[in-house]
């Protein structure tokens, strides 16, 4: 009987997460007690964590977490989709370009049409990616890279055609929605006043978890990535399941990209575009979350929360936290998690083509 069997089941199942929590608490204790000025720092940091800060962190989480959830559906089904960043760009651009062609009113159908068309556009690009990978057996990583490069070039190019400019002028934005009663609560009420994409994320995370873990479709997705042969033998088309997984990743990225752009009401195509690496961070988030939508959301929220924290700390005199340094945390974290904690396991058939024997 090994030690592991003696531990309570909950501890065994969540050993990694618990280790992380214990390590963080230990680090915090050291900072507070040993490092000079550590206590003051912790007081300052906890001072900025208010409802307004959390609301900001949630808004920053939206594109990252939607990209991450999308990536999970695709990769669990057996198609590695590293084009998430590109799909976010497509979503963001399409949302704004749709607004350009719709009448300029604040009527609610205008913004939701832009949102819907952005999701369709992103899903369509994901479908093309799926065709290239599944029908033409392209290398998934390279095809995914192509999705990103094409979006990175095409969106600014199309912007120049539409607006003679890589950056669009400004358009209407999502207005905030408040949840009755809850939003009137003192101090935490602000958390319940947010733009629709934030609420959609709160619904999407448990929903994605439920679909993947408790439905037949979820089992198919899992089997398609782990053991496509068995799925095929059971009479389910691996091709169709993989198409569904990839298109769903397009749908989620479309929501994330449109959510980002419709919050600002503008598309910026210069440099890395306004998406600015959020898709890549989404990719690292679901690896850290070990292909679990809840874990991926928590990782996304952690990264977005650090970013929001960095924004607040810069404003307190005396702290010079470099935004560039905060920007590399997700990538350092994913290397640490993959190399040292090492519990992230790719679906065993992800990245491989499946040839039905029929």
């Amino acid at each position, binding site marked *: 009987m090994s030690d592991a069997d003696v531990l309570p089941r909950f501890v065994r199942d969540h050993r990694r997460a618990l280790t992380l929590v214990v390590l963080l608490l230990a680090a915090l204790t050291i900072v507070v007690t040993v490092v000079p000025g550590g206590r003051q720092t912790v007081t300052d940091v906890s001072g900025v964590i208010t409802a307004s800060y959390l609301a900001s962190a949630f808004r920053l989480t939206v594109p990252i977490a939607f990209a991450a959830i999308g990536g999970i559906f695709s990769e669990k089904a057996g198609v590695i989709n590293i084009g998430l960043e590109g799909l976010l760009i497509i979503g963001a651009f399409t949302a704004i370009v749709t607004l350009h062609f719709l009448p300029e009113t604040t009527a609610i159908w205008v913004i939701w049409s832009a949102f819907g068309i952005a999701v369709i556009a992103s899903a369509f690009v994901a479908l093309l990616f799926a065709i290239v990978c599944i029908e033409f057996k392209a290398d998934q990583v390279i095809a995914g890279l192509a999705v990103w490069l*094409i979006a990175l070039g095409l969106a600014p190019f199309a912007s120049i055609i539409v607006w003679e400019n890589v950056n669009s*002028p400004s358009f209407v*934005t999502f207005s905030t929605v408040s949840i009755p009663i809850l939003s009137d609560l003192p101090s935490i009420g602000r958390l319940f006043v947010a733009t629709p994409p934030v609420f959609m994320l709160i619904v999407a995370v448990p929903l994605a978890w439920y679909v993947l873990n408790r439905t037949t479709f979820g089992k198919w997705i899992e089997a398609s990535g782990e053991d496509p042969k068995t799925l095929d033998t059971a009479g389910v088309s691996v091709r169709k399941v993989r198409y569904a997984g990839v298109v769903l990743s397009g749908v989620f990225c479309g929501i994330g990209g449109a959510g980002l752009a419709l*919050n*600002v009401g503008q598309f910026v195509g210069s440099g890395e575009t306004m998406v600015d690496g959020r898709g890549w961070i989404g990719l690292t988030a679901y690896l850290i979350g070990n292909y679990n939508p809840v874990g991926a959301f928590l990782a996304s929220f952690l990264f977005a929360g650090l970013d929001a924290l960095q924004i607040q700390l810069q*404003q307190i005199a005396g702290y010079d936290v470099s935004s560039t340094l905060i920007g590399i945390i997700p990538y350092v974290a994913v290397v640490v998690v993959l190399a040292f904690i090492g519990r992230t396991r790719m679906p065993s058939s992800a990245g491989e083509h499946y040839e039905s024997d029929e």
Partner: protein
Amino acid sequence: MDRRTFVASLGVGATVGLAGCVIGDNGDESGEDINVGMVYSSGGLGDESFNDMAHNGVEQAEADFGISYQNAEPDSPADMNDYQREFAGSDEYDLVCCIGFDHVTDLVQNAQEFSDQQFVLVDAVAETEDGDLVENVDNYVFREHEGSFQVGHLAGLLTTMEFDHGGASTASEDPHIGFVGGEETAIIDRFEAGYIAGAEYADEDIEVSTAYAGSWDDPGTGQEIATTMYDNGADIVFHAAGATGGGVFEAAQSAERYAIGVDDDQSISAEGFSDVIVASMVKRVNTAVYESIESVVDDDFEGGSVEDLGLEEDGVEAVVGQDFEGELPEEITDALVESREGIIDGDIDVPEET
């Protein structure tokens, strides 16, 4: 199969990628034989500020002198070297304008190699390792801190009084303003230093929050930064952050507070936000480009010199937003005129560094 797909994918990616940055030929009115090569900074045209201002300058020169020009938009600082060498090496250009401080390292080398080529550098000074000015480069730099002092002074005066016009208002209690920068560079530091000094000139007790977005093209982050500033009680936020600033304006509109634009009069270039853009710190990059072309047309191009443009030379200026012209209280406009004269006369010392 896999390799072919690889090549095909890369090919498509590269083609589409390049499509965004091809060199555009803008025609020739052949009044003069002067041909100008424009190499912009990596933000590219369409930033509604710095690069577009430079482009306005060359367009104006085209209209006035009938020169012809060619634009090149590097995607990254790494491409700047190629464009500089391409223009200089072709022997077809009388002047190569390098817009932005990112050009300086490559230009110092290229200008010495192509010593017959006339260059203009905006926002930096080309110096050799010995500290000598490169002989065939005319340098234009701006004293951004002076213009920023003016908008800081304006923001400081507004936040300490009750003001209600356009899409926003300020209250007199808890004077608090903000500054959002793009990337942490020496130039943006001048904006920040001048702005803070201007606010303190208005009132010592004003709280100034500052933060950098870490990017010139991330309005999402710009919006979050400005939102937290407005949430914490800031009445006015000044941005020097390129396209990131679009998010600052959006945040200003939803918080119903004021913002200050940068580089050109953003109440006109970003018209949708004219009800909250109380002023802009205009930096006349167009004048620099125009004057340098004029000097080539008049055949009195002076390499190896530095044109240092501040308030006195009208290189920088605080311009009141189009919705706020004549709407600001007289005490504010008078105070601004007074502090402008103070800076020009040297009575007010504006710091260049925070």
